[in-house]
Each structure stands twice: as C-alpha cells, then as structure tokens.
C-alpha cells in the first residue's frame, strides 16, 4: 500500500516531468544515470554451455579449466600417470548443462608429440562408453578437429590419452566442444573476471568410488537477456567505478533502495568484497555522502537433486541488494541524489579488484522488494 502510493506518486510526478523515477534500468539506452569506470553489459545464454570441467590430475597452476579459457598461453597440464586408483591415462572431462548431440571436438594438444587418445561419452564410469580412439597429428598446429561418430548424445565428454613413456608433461591448451558457440558457451573465456568456482564431488573411477574430486565450474557472469551496468575495478585507484542518479523517495519515511543483480559467485558480494555501497550525495563538494552497505541481500534459490550429494554449482542467479535510507536522511525530500560506488569490501580497506555484480535495475520503495 505504502509502496504503491510512493510508486503512484513517483509515476505521476515523473509523467509531469517533475521528479525522479522510482525505477531505473541502468543498462538501457537513455537511462537517467551517469557513470564512470563502469560498462554496459548484456548476454544471451546459448542453449548449451559448459557447466564444469575436471580432470584426472593437474600440475599447480595448470588446472583443467585453463583448457577452456580461450587463452592459448594457459593450459591444463599433467606429468606422469594419473594417481591411483586410475590405471589408464590422464583425462579431461567436460560436462554440459544438458545432454546434446556432439558431432566433433577440437583439441590444441600441448607439445609436439602425438597423443594416443580415446573419447568417451556419459559422465559416470559405470555408464561410460568409448566413442572414439585415435592418434593426434603431432606438431604444433593449433586446434585439431576430431570428428565423432554420428549421433553421440551425451552430457559429458571425456578425452583420455596414454601417458608419455618418459613422463614428459602432457596436456591440452584449448579444447572446444563442437557446435558450441565460442566464447558464449565458455563463460570463463568470455569475461576475464568471470569466476571459476572449484567444488568437490565424488567420482567413480574404475568402478571404485573415489572420495572426492575437484570440479571447476565456469560461471555465467550475466543474466540471459537484458542489459545491465557493471561497476569495474580500477588499477589507478583504490575504489572502483560509480554511478550517480536521482531516485524518487517518500519523504519522512525510511526508504529502501533495491538493486536487482545477477550474481555468479558462490557467495554474496557482501561476504567476498567487490561490492556496491550506496552513498547519498548532498550536492556539497566538501560533504561526503553517507554510506550504506546492503542491509539485506536476497537470492533466488535453485534446487538440484543430481549433483552426487555435493553442493550444486550455480553458474548464476538473481540476487537483490537492499539498502535502507533512514527517514532522518531522507528528510522532507521527494527525491535523492544517490551514488552506487564499487568498493573492495565492507570495511573499505581493500581495493576493488574485480567487477561488482551487474545491476539490472535500481528501485526505491518503503520495503525491501524484489520483482
């Protein structure tokens, strides 16, 4: 009721060209917002994308997700045979968000020696099925296409290779799943700040149950569709980008400012840093605004029953950050000059080092609301 009144008031005054809006979609063209060190971002999720990647082993700094990061200067790398109880060669496995027909894969092998490889489908050992076997061309020719038999329908694809006799380092610089758009289906490659979340899950190997294996889950840094404003870190400053705007408020009342965010990290921005604080701008160059970290952060919850009992990887979800503006600060004003400031952490004693979650909308109300 109160929020409706506020919205009606804001709508009416906005229509008359008198006041600030109660909702701003900062990523949209002509949005009434000024920003520095921030960028407009948007994405459309493909039907298929890489959900996770894991491997038999890796050397430090040569984790398996580096084979799908779009950077041929990085790689997944091993040395020697895989750890027990694995008895065959080392392998890299990529899991999609849903099963699909995979016509081919492309592999950029590490080193110039040819690899004796096998390709499997299905993610679990007890159902795993070899679909291909061959020998790579050797040399250093970049991506080498491996055409699979027709009709390989699977959610996970594994490529395994024989261990080099001299235990030389082996691995894969880059791997592509045929038919998946690049880099859209490889979020890590699409955005250098998109996080990779390591999770541990159980894995069957040689029909023996291994306790845990680390799975690397590339994230989806943006929502499917729409556009957003993302506050960026700065190498030349302690704090990051910012955005200034005016928003309608209800005078004499506690008001809540809510940001609709797309969150792809495993923890909330208030816990990890790289968050957004709200500042009031009083229009006086010597008066710093009052600062408000989010009082509440709410998140859309996902249910997942089939992740082997481990925490479900969340490539992305909606989150809402709610900031409370006390009535004493709002005063008798019907609109406030506000700023969203990217900072490093709640204490603001560490620099912003990664982008804040993209902001899809900014709204005011008398309660913390979500759309």
């Amino acid at each position, binding site marked *: 009721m109160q929020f409706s009144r506020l919205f009606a008031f804001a709508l009416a005054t906005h229509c008359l060209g008198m006041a600030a809006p109660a909702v701003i979609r900062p990523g949209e063209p002509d949005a009434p917002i000024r920003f520095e060190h921030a960028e407009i971002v948007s994405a459309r999720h493909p039907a298929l994308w890489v959900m996770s990647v894991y491997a038999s082993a890796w050397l430090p700094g040569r984790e398996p997700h580096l084979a799908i990061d779009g950077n041929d200067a990085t790689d997944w790398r091993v040395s020697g045979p895989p750890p027990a109880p694995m008895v065959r060669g080392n392998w890299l496995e990529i899991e999609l968000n849903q099963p699909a027909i995979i016509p081919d894969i492309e592999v950029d092998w590490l080193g110039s020696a040819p690899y004796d490889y096998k390709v499997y489908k299905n993610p679990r050992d007890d159902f795993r099925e070899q679909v291909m076997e061959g020998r790579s061309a050797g040399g250093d020719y970049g991506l080498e296409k491996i055409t699979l038999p027709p009709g390989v329908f699977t959610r996970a694809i594994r490529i395994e290779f024989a261990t080099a006799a001299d235990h030389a380092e082996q691995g894969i610089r880059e791997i592509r799943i045929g038919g998946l758009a690049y880099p859209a289906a490889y979020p890590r490659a699409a955005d250098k700040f998109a996080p990779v979340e390591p999770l541990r899950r159980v894995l069957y190997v040689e029909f023996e149950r291994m306790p845990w294996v680390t799975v690397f889950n590339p994230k989806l840094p943006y929502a499917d569709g729409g556009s957003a404003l993302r506050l960026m870190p*700065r*190498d*030349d*400053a*302690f704090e990051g980008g910012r955005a200034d705007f005016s928003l309608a408020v209800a005078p004499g009342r506690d008001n809540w400012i809510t940001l609709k965010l797309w969150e792809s990290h495993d923890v909330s921005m208030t816990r990890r840093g790289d968050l957004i604080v709200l500042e*009031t701008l*009083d229009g*006086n*160059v*010597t*008066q*710093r*605004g*009052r*600062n*408000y*970290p989010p009082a509440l952060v709410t998140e859309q919850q996902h249910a997942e029953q089939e992740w082997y009992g481990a925490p479900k990887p969340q490539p992305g979800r909606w989150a809402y950050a709610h900031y409370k503006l*006390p009535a*004493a*600060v709002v005063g008798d004003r019907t609109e406030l000059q506000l700023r969203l400031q990217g900072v490093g952490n709640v*204490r*603001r*004693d*560490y*620099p912003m*080092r990664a982008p804040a979650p993209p902001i899809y909308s900014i709204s005011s109300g008398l309660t913390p609301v979500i759309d």
Partner: protein
Amino acid sequence: MPAYRSLFVTALCAFMSAAIAGRAETLTSLRLGDAVSEQAARLSAVSAPIETAPEIALGEPGRRLLPAAASLPASLAFDVRLDPNAQNYLTLRLWGSDANWTPVDLLTDSDSVSLGNLWWHVTREAPVPGRFLYRTFPLPIEVTRGKTSLRLRIATAPAPQAIGVFRNADQPAPQRSYRPSFAFYGIHTHTDSWFQPSASERQGPSFAWGPPAPKPAGYPDTVEARLLQRARADIARSLAYGVARSRYDTGHRYDTRVLETLPLIYFTEWSGHYREKSVAEKTLAGIDAHVLRQAAQGGAPGAMFYRGWGSHGRIAHACSQMHEVFAAEGWLDQPLSLVTPSGTRAVSRRQAYADFFHDAFNWRLQDRRSWTNQPVYVSHTLYRLQKALRVLGDPRALTEAQALHYLHVSYGLEPMRSRPGAMDVDDAGYPYFLTTRAGLTREKGYVDAYGELSDVLVPIAEETGDPVAYEFARKFMRARSVFRIPSNDTTGNGMLRGIGAMSWRGTTFPFRVFYSGIEEAAVLGDPVSLRLAQLEIAHGRLHLLPAEPERGPHWHPASSIRLVDQYRKIKDLPPSPYRLPAEPGQPDFVWSDPENGVFVFRDGETLVYGSFFNLDAFNGRSVGDRGIYHLVRPESERLVEFPPDFALPESGLSVTVRYPFGDRIRPQTPPPPGMTTWASEPPDWLDHRAGRAYFYHTRTGPYVIAMNTTETGTYRESTWTLPAIPGATKARDLATGEIVDLSRPLPLPAYTSRFFILE
C-alpha cells in the same frame, strides 16, 4: 538552536559580564618567607622551611616541601580570600630554574578533599631558566561557591599521573611521593584566569637567545666530517650486526632496522662497501631468517614481532631495494626449504618471500591502529609489503595507486575506516580523518613529538615519490613551525623548543629541543624546513653530536648515513626567507586549529599557545572542563588552566565523572545523523569529536578568544555568537587590526577563530 550551558559557563559568563573593569583584582597575595604576609594568611608549614640563596630566585625567600616522616607529610596550609560568585583561581609563583618538579596536591585543609594536582606535567629540566614561572589553577567552583574565604593545604602529592589534572574519585590513590617539591615563592588567588604580577614583584632578566653551542674538544674541522664519522661508525656497526636471526622481543626493531640499512650501504658510493656482494648476501640471509621463522610458526605474522608495526615493512623494503641484485644472482629461483608445523616443503625463494609478504599484509590489514604514528607506520608497512610483492611479480600484488591509498589514509587525505567507530561515522557522512585541515594530528587533541608526522612522512615522501606525501609533509611542517619557540638550554646556548604543555600525550613541560629541519629541508626543499635546518646549524646543535651515535631505543643506522647527504644538500643553500612566528622581532600573528581547539597568537612580545580541548578526566568523551595555555613573555612565563566557556546543541548525551569534591556531568555533542551514540573509548577507539564543543570562548586578561569549531560542509556547520561583553566597545582584532565592538554579540561563522585585545 538550543545551547547547552554548564553551571560553570553560566557562572563564568556572569562573572565576565560583571567585571569588564577591574577583572585583574587579586584577592590573596601570600609571599612565602615574608613573616607579615605569612601571618596574614595564617600559614602553617610542616617540613617546609624557608630557604634563601642569592643565586636562586633573585635571592628571594621561598618554602619547599621536603621529604618528611610518613606520619606527617610536608605541607603548607594557608587562608585565601575568594569571590563567592565567581570562578576563583590559585596562582603559584615558582622559580623557573628549580631542579625539583614533582606533583603537588591541593586540598581543603579542614576535610582534606583533593582539589587537584598542581603539577601534573612531566618536567625533566629547568623549565624557565633564570626567570619566574606562574602556575595558575582554577579552584573547583563546587568548593568555593558562596564562600569568601577558605583554608587550603598544599602537600606532596602521589606519584605523577600520566594524564589528568584531577584524579578520578573512582581510581585508587597512588602511593605518596616523598621527593622534595619545587619551592613556592608566592601564592595568589584571583578571579581572572590571567594573573598579572604586581609591578613590585621582581622578575628575572628578559630572555635573549644565547650563543651557539661550541665545538667540543676533539671535534673535527667541519660538521660534515663529524657526520661522516658518525655514519661510518654506524656502517661498521651494521655490517658487524648479526641480521640473520628473527625474534619476537623488542630486539627485532634493531634487527630489521639494520636489515633495511644494508641496501643503503650497498648503494651508497662513499660507504666503503659500494656494491659489495657480501652486503647483498647478508641482506638475503636476514630476510631468509624472518621468512623461515614465520613459516615455522605456521605462517602467523602476528606472532612474529612485539608491537611490530614496521618490522615486516622494513624487511619488505630491504627486499625491494635489493630485488634486482637478488634476481641477477639467481638467488630468487633457488629453493628454500620451509619447515612448517605440517611438514617440510621446498619452494623457490621468490615464492617463499611472496607468501611471507602476502600473509603479513593480510594480517597487518586487520589492525591499522588509531592514532598518528601508529597508523603511519602500519600504512607504510602495508605499502612496502605490496611493493615487495610487485617487484617479485606476485599476482596478488596491488597496484602502486592502490597501495598508496593506505598511506593517504595515514596522512588524512582519505578518511580512516579501519575501526568500527570510524566506520560508523564515515557511513554517517562525518568521516574521521587522522589529521586536521590545519595540519595537526587529531588524536585526542594537540600532541607534541609523536604528533609531528613530518619525521615519518618525509622519508615516506622520498621513498614513494608520492606528490601527496610531499604536499602533506610541507603542510605539516608549516603548521608545526608555529610550535617552535626560542629558548636556551641548561648551559645557556640558544636553541628551539617544541611546545608540550598542552599535549595530551606525555604532557611534557618544557618540551625538549626540537627542530626537525635538516632531513625535511633536504627532501621537501621548502622554506619552512630550511629555516629550521639553518637555525639548527646556526645554533651549533650539530656540534653536540657525538662521534658515534647513541644506540638508544630509536637508533636507526640509516638516519646517520642519510644525514650526510642531506646535510651536504642544504649546507650551502642561501638563507631561507621564512621566519618562525615566534622568532624575535616578528610581527603579531594568529593561528588556530578549530578541529583540535588549539589557538596560538602573538601580541608584541607576548606569545600564547593554548587549547580549549585539553585532556582532563572526561578524556575526550564529552566536553571537558579544562583548557590550558602557555604564555611566554620575555621576563616570565605562565601556565594557565581555565574552564572554557562553550556551547553546543542539546544531544541528551552526557558523561559523569566523580571528582573528590563532587560529580560533574558534561555533555556530548550530537552524534552524526543516523547514529545514536558515539564510539566509546579505547582500546577500541575514541572519537574526541564527541567531546569537542561547537563553540568555545574565553576572556583572559586583555584578550578574548573565540572559536567556532564546526566544520563547513558537515552536519555541524553552524554559526555561533560570542556573547556581548559589557563595556568592551573597543577591541582590536589581532589578525586584521580591525576595531570591533564586543559590547554587542558577535556572530562567528563555521570554522572561524577570532582573537581580540580589549583597548
């Protein structure tokens, strides 16, 4: 806007209003050793004989409290006259060359209620050689109200208390001291905080700067030769020092200071060890020792060094300076075997160093301290750790701009947020900066030595090249140049002293010899520092430097090595055009720092250094009841405590202190919007702005001082009015010369101070 008025303020206002003429009336004049005067005051002396010596106090008699039997402590009891409706003051006449400066209790004679400590300063040398010092103390109005006379007693007091005029009644009484006191030559009561000695009182000869300190026997031909002697002594000591060790106790300061000096020796062409590989090896071994110990302790930097605000930073600095040498020798790629609680592992030295610095940064970031030197040292450490990470190529390193942020917080360019209370006020739009706009440290008010940031900020400016550090260092130097006064040392040689009487830390009076010029001038190149440096040289202070630096608690061998080139850089520069405001012959001036309640002015030969905001039993938690000023005149000096008049908006918040003579309730200022209370007190944090009134004023003798402390652009910004002073139709503004009618109320805008002399 409703204003809070304390009982004292009301009383003082009434008093001020009523007594524009004849304010300086003296109610009691007791001359010790004068039989007639003592009889009139019914003086009773216990273990306080009369002493007279021709070379002391111009030959005048006085009485000194001597060590006495525990059953009968030394004391002087006497009658004083009072004004029953006014604030009364007690002034002691003391000889400034006295050698004994101990706490002295003032009590009511009838019931032994303590009224306060008459000498709570730390005094290590004769404060006013060859002249009299007048010490003025406000008598608690709770005791004097309605009385026309009172019998008081002065007795040897408990051991010195670190701070505070009064002992809080809740605190246990310390053990009594049995040292002799200073001698008393006169005791007066009066109703103006300004005590004007009668013309018949003899005074010592007027102050004149003494000659420069001469070169002692064995001193080399030139100052530069002496500085080289000292530097070479420290170089030899540094190279002989065993840096390849790491320890928790305070010795770590020497270890790490020497460690960071080794690269300086390595890169100094005249050191005799220029680019000597053994020096680089020694540096490496020193860093290794700390890295290995931290790993052995499970990577816990907090367990490394006792109060180690700067130690990790010094290790990092040594690494940064020598990094290219280490890399060229291939030492960074060598394996280092780390023995940790979970086993032994071998990593490259580069990785081991990087982990060491990274862990130290994350730990040190958790506690950046609160006041002045500590946040600067900690910030310097944070900056240095990041620089070391950068030169090692560690991906966790922050950029230079990001690392500089920590230093900018310590200068006061950026607000401090690293304490819960500081975060609260920052969120509320009233950020806490560690320094004031005027260029002092904020702390709990004015601070001497520790409060002067230039000694740490200048090396930081030189090390970082940060233009902001240069700018702030010059600003601090200009502010601190106000707090240098001409003086003579105990041998009569001229020098500059700092101002310590109103400092809340240490409360030293007199403050020691203080220039802070040579390093500052060499680095900053500003006329203020250069003047200080040239005075230090002209006063012969460098002649007093021994051939080998003393290895005291602050010994740092880099200082003596750096001083050689710093001296060479400035010794032949033309004279600075700048003159310190306190130098002889300088014009009148005024200076204030409303954020610290500090004021300074010069009126002819009268110099006044004061603070409305002095540390008292309220400890900055609420508006205090005590201001202080130090008055310097050629023939005498005065230390005056006074209850300032003040005003502030009603907040409903207050602090109560139990004094022996009754409770006092003092108001807190309104917290920033959105906050309901202020951060409380140490060890967590204390924001003295809770106890800084919006408006202070006082009239003392011919002077009226008014200060609006509210900062422009904050929730406090407001205009306050100096109440009318009946009859004061002509007052000269000391800053502008303007004649102002103070018989009418005078509004003062935010962040404004005015100084008047009534004519």
